[in-house]
């Protein structure tokens, strides 16, 4: 049996999917979280069923790439049954898609999700009548708590062939929907709750902008404090227990030589030694993971509360100057965690032009958590001023490159058109699970990459490639950026993973202003290899080449200017 999960954006399809299959997928409180489909399996009536979580769509006429995916899925997958997830607080407009799916002649089970929220809002829906009028089974659920999911499973095992329906025009559909909602739904007026008042306050400019500044500053403060707090626990663990332990083991087996150096390096310092078991584990676990955790925890709260679309409204004006609209702030925020999901999330944008600008800006100027960890780890110790220079420069580059692209690329940026979700109080269990999933994703990606990277750097050193590269690039870059030859190598190696560069920059004991230049260029010049692969996939060869060209020019120009300015000031 093959089951498609469909529905409007932000109705909780992904939560229903997780509940049915036990497969965890990221779900958030804003439209467009799912841009790709996810497959999972569940047991339905003793039979194994394949379930596919499809991106949200308002109709079967796609207006964005994510919606296109949804339409293609319905046509190509030929499902045995479609679970149509409906937001019970917005029955009327959700039914439009329901009618579209029904016209395709597929059996449908309608799931009225967010039943609890509807209840709180004073909305009652007569499920039996709705089921009669639509001629499909209807089940109510609260997917975040799992309520009603069993009912869905039971209903799935007994779906019948659909009634053949004559296709209706759009107007006829709306007329029918109007009649249905009139009969099945009653809405009792409630006074606005505190959350509802807060909803309005956070989009009104006079109150919204101070609230936004407050939320963004508090978020960064929490990320930094929590990250540093964790590092102060994990760091000593590595230094006091793990380090001596692993050194002793390795040295008792292999006292010296090539393998010994590959495994634990030649110095005892975790960052500098560049051994597989020392630097290779210390960097991802003790330097980057703490920030990844704290970032995703804070991001998860903002996502699940439903704050991000409001931020999109407030920044819409600014984003239009960069050829984008407000919604593109959501991929950008995701990109701060890792550019890969950030780039995928640009699929919510309508035009190719917007996607090119958003993706390029992200790859150039949005530092992922691995980069942030490098920046904070290396530059942070010299004080906030230096950190401010790095992030200030990145911000200016973001605005500058965006402005430039908006000017030279033909076309206009479409207007913002976005549904703003209600505020929800996050479910702690769902939130922690999501954070854990993203951390696991980071570990699975990062650790192998760092290990391979450390290994390769060692090998490249031994066979002399590093010296060759350094000699080839150094004269130009030394003069331009004011960095020693070895720092240039670190930048080149950063292509594999940006956080590895920290291990190579650390032993050079650069001046603070040199570190500022190195970190800024490291962020700007080229995405890491994983991001590069996604760039290729999403933009194609030609546009990727253009984006890379922009990155190269920007990083060298900005690095050179920054160096001159810093030498002049300091």
């Amino acid at each position, binding site marked *: 049996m093959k089951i498609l999960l469909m529905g409007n954006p932000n109705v909780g399809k992904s939560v229903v999917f997780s509940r049915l299959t036990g497969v965890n997928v990221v779900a958030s409180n804003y439209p467009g979280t799912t841009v790709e489909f996810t497959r999972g399996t569940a047991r339905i009536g003793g039979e194994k069923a394949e379930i596919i979580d499809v991106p949200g769509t*308002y109709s079967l006429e796609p207006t964005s790439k994510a919606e296109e995916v949804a339409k293609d899925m319905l046509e190509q997958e030929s499902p045995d049954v479609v679970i149509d997830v409906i937001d019970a607080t917005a029955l009327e*407009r959700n039914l439009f898609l329901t009618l579209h799916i029904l016209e395709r002649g597929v059996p449908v089970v309608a799931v009225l999700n967010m039943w609890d929220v509807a209840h709180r809002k004073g909305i009652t829906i007569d499920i039996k009548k709705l089921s009669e009028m639509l001629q499909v089974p209807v089940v109510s659920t609260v997917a975040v708590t799992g309520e009603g999911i069993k009912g869905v499973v039971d209903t799935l095992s007994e779906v019948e062939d659909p009634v053949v329906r004559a296709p209706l025009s*759009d107007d006829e559909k709306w007329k029918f929907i109007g009649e249905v909602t009139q009969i099945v739904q009653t809405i009792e007026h409630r006074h606005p709750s505190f959350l509802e008042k807060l909803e309005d306050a956070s*989009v009104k*400019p006079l109150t919204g902008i101070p609230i936004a500044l407050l939320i963004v500053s508090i978020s960064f403060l929490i990320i930094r404090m929590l990250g540093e707090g964790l590092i102060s626990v994990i760091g000593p663990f590595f230094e006091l227990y793990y380090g001596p332990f692993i050194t002793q083991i390795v040295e008792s087996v292999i006292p010296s030589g090539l393998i010994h150096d590959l495994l634990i390096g030649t110095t005892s310092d975790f960052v500098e030694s560049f051994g597989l078991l020392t630097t290779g584990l210390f960097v991802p676990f003790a330097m980057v993971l703490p920030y990844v955790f704290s970032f995703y925890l804070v991001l998860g709260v903002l996502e699940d509360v439903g704050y991000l679309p409001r931020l999109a409204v407030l920044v819409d004006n600014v984003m239009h100057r960069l050829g984008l609209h*407000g919604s593109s702030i959501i991929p950008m925020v995701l990109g701060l965690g890792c550019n890969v999901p950030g780039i995928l999330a640009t699929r919510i944008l309508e035009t190719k032009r917007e996607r090119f600008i958003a993706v390029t800006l992200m790859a150039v100027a949005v530092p992922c958590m691995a980069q942030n960890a490098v920046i904070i780890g290396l530059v942070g110790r010299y004080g906030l001023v230096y950190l401010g220079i790095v992030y200030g420069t990145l911000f200016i580059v973001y605005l500058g490159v965006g402005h430039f692209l908006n000017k030279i690329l033909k076309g206009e940026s*479409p*207007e*913002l*058109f976005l549904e703003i979700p209600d505020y929800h109080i996050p479910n702690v269990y769902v939130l922690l699970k999501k954070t854990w999933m993203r951390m696991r994703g980071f570990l699975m990606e990062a650790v192998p990459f760092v290990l391979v990277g450390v290994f390769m750097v060692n090998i490249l050193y031994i066979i002399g490639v590093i010296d060759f590269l350094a000699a080839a690039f150094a004269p130009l870059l030394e003069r331009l950026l004011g960095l020693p030859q070895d720092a240039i190598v670190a930048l080149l190696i950063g292509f594999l993973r940006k956080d590895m560069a920290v291990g190579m920059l650390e032993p050079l004991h650069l001046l603070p202003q040199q570190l500022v230049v190195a970190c800024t260029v490291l962020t700007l010049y080229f995405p890491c290899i994983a991001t590069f692969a996604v760039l290729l996939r999403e933009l194609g060869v030609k546009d990727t080449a253009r984006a890379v060209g922009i990155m190269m020019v920007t990083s060298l120009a900005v690095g050179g200017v920054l160096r001159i300015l810093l030498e002049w000031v300091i």
Partner: protein
Amino acid sequence: MNVEISLADLHTSCGRVTRIEGGHGFKRHLACLGIRVNKKVCRVTAQPFRGPMVVEVDGTQIAMGRGMCRKIFVEVER
């Protein structure tokens, strides 16, 4: 007396949608979010410098560029 104004000119309270200009795709997208002829639309707020407006329909808030709002006409009591 009832007068027809564009949604962009709706400065306070609510109005009833009378007509929508623009292509089929635009109208349909609006319809899917609840903005259709005869629907009551309320203004929540608007961003300065001709930034997007936030309106409420059927208890759902929608953010829309000002250009789109100019294509939606509502009837208000004067």
